[in-house]
């Protein structure tokens, strides 16, 4: 021990490089997601009354409780601090009708956290989206899951009564068909305008109604680099393209497409649920294929399925393909495409001084390193994001 060490009584820490880490961690990311979800909650509260907030709070609390309880029971280190359970709880409440009784939500939360997430080891280890799986499970009570309240129909902001599971909606608010139900029959809804659908004055699950608020949240996530645009864009573009090319019921293509984009859980799914890290691919190209798959299945179910809404099942189905996709579509290998790029001089052998190949000017764009493979669009999308995810750092001038 050196004198210095002795003098300062230093017990130094030794660890592997790197010795600095970004300030972002799981908790801060999840916090960002929660923040991004708030506008949609605000719209829900405005449209459906205070019950929307209560439902969200109850679901969040229950998820956090189950996460804590399971890990306690299994004697595993606690992990509620990472807030991922809170995100799951919040998102589950978003894809339920505002009238869902609390007991049903709590069962859903239990299902999501215990059976889907923690049983497989907790965050990062589950293979399907907990909130969506729970929503699918909650179709055990179809009446609850398909009872929609007309926005702004409550008599008082604070008094939306629960529906009673046995007698159906005994609400002092009016139940309504969602635009999706109408779209499923090939008809553009008459009672609401597209603008209303965009801002959220329509029936539907409490958190999904406002495409606008969700896009706002998505924008926040993009700016904070929590998500990359690959999945939401490829998802939405696929739905847009398919509905534009194949409009139903003789409707105008553009109008039909816009209605499809603004209705149902599409925005919520594309921005917040298909992007769930754990259950989506990590390679940008695979992400693009995943988004396209989600989009195609969504439209397929919306057009041909028994369910008017296909988003949750589309995402769940694609969840099961994640491992395959990540394997099949990883992004090439550094140096694998070198032959094409090697300069003539290097191969010509000695005498470089007599005829040195000029150094490439840096202005010339580098050639695309990968060989152009299948799915050029996916490739492009992948590339677009590849640059993007450099995480935001503490600025050097801080």
């Amino acid at each position, binding site marked *: 021990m050196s004198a210095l060490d002795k003098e300062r009584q230093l*017990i*130094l*820490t*030794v*660890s*592997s490089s790197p010795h600095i880490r970004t300030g972002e961690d799981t908790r801060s990311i999840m916090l960002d997601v929660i923040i991004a979800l708030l506008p949609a909650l605000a719209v829900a509260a405005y449209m459906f009354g205070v019950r929307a907030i209560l439902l969200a709070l109850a679901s969040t609390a229950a998820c956090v409780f189950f996460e804590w309880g399971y890990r306690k029971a299994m004697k595993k280190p606690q992990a509620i601090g990472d807030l991922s359970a809170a995100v799951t709880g919040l998102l589950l409440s978003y894809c339920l009708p505002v009238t869902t009784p609390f007991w049903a939500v709590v069962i859903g939360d239990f299902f999501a956290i215990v059976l889907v997430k923690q049983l497989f080891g907790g965050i990062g280890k589950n293979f399907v989206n907990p909130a969506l799986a729970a929503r699918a499970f909650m179709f055990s009570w179809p009446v609850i899951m398909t009872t929609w309240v007309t926005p702004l129909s409550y008599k008082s902001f604070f008094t939306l009564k629960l529906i009673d599971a046995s007698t159906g909606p005994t609400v002092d608010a009016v139940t309504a068909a969602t635009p999706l139900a109408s779209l499923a029959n090939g008809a553009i809804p008459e009672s609401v305008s597209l603008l209303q659908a965009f801002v959220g004055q329509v029936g539907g699950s409490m958190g999904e109604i406002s495409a606008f608020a969700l896009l706002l949240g998505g924008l926040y996530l993009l700016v904070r680099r929590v998500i990359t645009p690959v999945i939401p864009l490829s998802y939405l573009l696929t739905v847009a393209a398919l509905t534009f090319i194949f409009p139903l019921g003789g409707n105008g293509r553009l109008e039909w497409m816009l209605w499809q984009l603004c209705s149902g859980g599409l925005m919520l799914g594309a921005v917040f649920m298909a992007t769930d890290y754990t259950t989506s691919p990590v390679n940008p190209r695979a992400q693009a294929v995943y988004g396209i798959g989600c989009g195609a299945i969504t439209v397929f179910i919306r057009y041909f399925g028994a369910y008017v809404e296909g988003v949750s099942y589309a995402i769940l189905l694609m969840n099961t393909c994640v491992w395959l996709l990540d394997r099949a579509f990883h992004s090439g290998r550094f140096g694998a495409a070198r032959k094409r790029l090697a300069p003539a001089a290097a191969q010509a052998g000695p005498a470089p001084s007599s005829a040195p190949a000029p150094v490439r000017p840096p202005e010339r764009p580098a050639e695309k390193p990968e060989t152009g493979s299948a799915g050029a669009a996916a490739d492009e999308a992948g590339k677009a994001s590849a640059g993007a995810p450099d995480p935001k750092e503490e600025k050097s001038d801080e």
Partner: protein
Amino acid sequence: MNNILYAVAVLGGLGAFFGLLLAIASKVFAVRTDEKLEAILACLSGANCGACGYAGCAAYAAAVAAGAPIDRCIPGGDETAKRIADIMGAAPAKVERLVAFVRCSGGDKTYDKYAYEGIKSCAMAASSISGGQRSCVYGCLGYGDCARVCPHGAISISGGVALVDREKCRGCMLCLAACPKKLIIRIPYSAASTIACANTDRGGLTRNVCQAGCLGCKICEKNCPHNAVHVENNVAVKDFSKCTNCGVCAEKCPRKLIKPPSGRLEERAE
């Protein structure tokens, strides 16, 4: 009655037809098969249930012939496994049961050179820097790589040192390879005591880094009536072929590190 006749005719006809077909096919398409393989196949349940994880009984039989574990046929159970064992060759002759032993008593009796942060694994810590955080570079790191590979849960970490439970250890010796410090040795199950240290530095240096380490004082060597203990390279080593379990060495060791191979560390120290 006609009906029954038809039934007999049709089904009997089908049976005869397919019987013939298979009989001919088995001649025409006869493939020479491995005797052993056939024998193994005959032992299996034949349910082709896939429970073994292979594509049917034949596939599993082939795998067994190629060295796969013999106890995977679930419907067949133990009996099948036994019969396959017979086919695959005589069971190994009875040998002295060997168990694993960790040659270290340091752990909490050493001090840490630094605070280690990182993956909790001996291999990682040892390969990271300076042979791990412990002051003694020979000793057990206590992150339990050995315990993780032990299929029988025989190893636990006690007082910062890995400890093998001789009753649970089946002598597979997977732990030997897992230990980056090469601290684990085989000893006879019956051995009453063994030297739990591997520090080959001179006594003074050892004393500096560990309160329990072997000083190479040779007291054990001198006292052993059977010439079974020797200090080599500054650390005592026991020759089990000579040791009679008389216990003199353990008694005389000033550091009390000649210990029985199982039991908790504290008990051993007594």
